[in-house]
């Protein structure tokens, strides 16, 4: 996360978005079922668009335009006034809407803990498990030169 702030809310919201963007729509919806979501309205109709993805020359130099990606976004407002935003790669507008809803909920005193426990915690665990499995599969293909040299001979 690149943005810092006097209070920790942007960081907390960013961390939540980072988890949600890695989750499938049905997963988020399933976990949200456990929460009595308050009345809210759509501030921005969920829509599809593009974001130009940038790389850096040499990996660490000046930026250049690599190519675009499809992105969905949405914004909602809770009846209590909190505004939530949802942005995610891909064309799934419902996912953007659900992320916006979670973003609004974690800004409330009433629902922040519930979203953390019911939605983010299980998603974090699932994502971590997937990452660990991938990392373990990758680690098995690491070349161990010492083993090769040490063979009987």
């Amino acid at each position, binding site marked *: 996360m690149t943005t810092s702030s006097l209070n920790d809310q942007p960081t907390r919201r960013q961390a939540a978005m980072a988890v949600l963007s890695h989750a499938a729509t049905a997963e988020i919806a399933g976990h949200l079922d456990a929460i009595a979501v308050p009345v809210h309205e759509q501030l921005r109709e969920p829509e599809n668009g*593009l*974001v130009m993805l*940038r790389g850096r020359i040499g990996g660490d130099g000046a930026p250049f335009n*690599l190519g675009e990606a499809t992105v969905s976004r949405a914004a909602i407002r809770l009846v209590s006034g909190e505004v939530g935003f949802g942005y995610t790669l891909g064309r799934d507008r419902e996912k953007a809407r659900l992320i916006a809803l979670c973003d609004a909920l974690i800004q409330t005193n009433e629902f922040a803990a519930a979203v953390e426990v019911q939605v983010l915690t299980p998603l974090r665990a699932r994502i971590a498990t997937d990452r660990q499995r991938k990392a373990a599969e990758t680690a*098995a293909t690491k070349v161990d030169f010492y083993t090769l040299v040490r063979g009987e001979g």
Partner: protein
Amino acid sequence: MYVAVKGGERAIENAHRLLAHERRGDRDVPEVSLAQISGQLSLGVDRVMTEGSLYDRELAALAIKQARGDMIEAIFLLRAFRATLPRFGASEPVDTSRMQVRRRISSTFKDMPGGQILGSTFDYTHRLLDPVLAGESMPEAPALAEAQPLAMPRVTDILGRDGLIESSPAEDADQPVGDLTRDALSFPADRDLRLQNLARADEGFLLSLGYSSQRGYGRNHPFAGEIRLGEVEVEFMAEDVGFAVPLGAITLTECQMVNQFKGTDTEAPCFTRGYGLAFGQSERKAMSMALVDRALRARELGEDVQAPAQDEEFVMSHSDNVQATGFVEHLKLPHYVDFQSELGLLRKLRKEFHEAMETPSEMQEAAE
């Protein structure tokens, strides 16, 4: 002309109906799904995303299905789709040093921090057709090993610490990032524009140019400093939200070529660099891109521009396969009027030629 166009309407409609029929193939064979294309022909999907310049696996799979496996047609479809959506903005530049690496190799250092990780690769396969795959088969589950949370610095960062390799060009906040989808190409082109052009360039074209530079046409002594594949996080500075929003992760292949050193009276010699970056697992593309990127730096590095791979106008004007196919394939379209005028001219010239043959000239008469 208009008579011909009207007469073609029904034929065109029926031709497209026949296309749909042939696309489907044998109707007794199950139809291929987008999930199958995306999952089992994944490197084809990666190529279409890279050269279609649009990261969206499902759309690229659809394009491949619709194009009956014709990759350039699929790339064309993806480019056309892209034009239908609004652009929200540009992402923060991705940080490939924080990639969740699934493959990472170097041909320059045997032992490097983080190690050599083969991942899934065709390298070291025997390139023998596998009859098992002709039927249905379920492969073994992947082997697992304990993953150590090791830092994986780029090889270029390691060389850079001792000043053995040039630094990447620094970011200039006042300089807008060039975008060839917004502004017409002009020459000389800066490296950001060249890399954008190469990123969406035809893989075969870059492969051939890269190969030509290795064979001596603009030679620059490359080593594959590092190739890495994996997932990187994307962030987007959304004005309405007020902070950089995480969008999720994309898969990238990055190639760092380490090339022959340069030096001047005032600067100590050091290695130079060529850079390649592509969507998905696109290793050949990333390597070719890095070779051509380095070759195109000839002017900047004071090298003689003698070979095609060093000529930015030649490379950038011919690298795009959608543009190239448009111009080549437009030759199929009716050129009846053009051709009639050529035909008329040719008939006139031939008539003049034969008339000249039949009327002996004064020279010939004198000789007889």
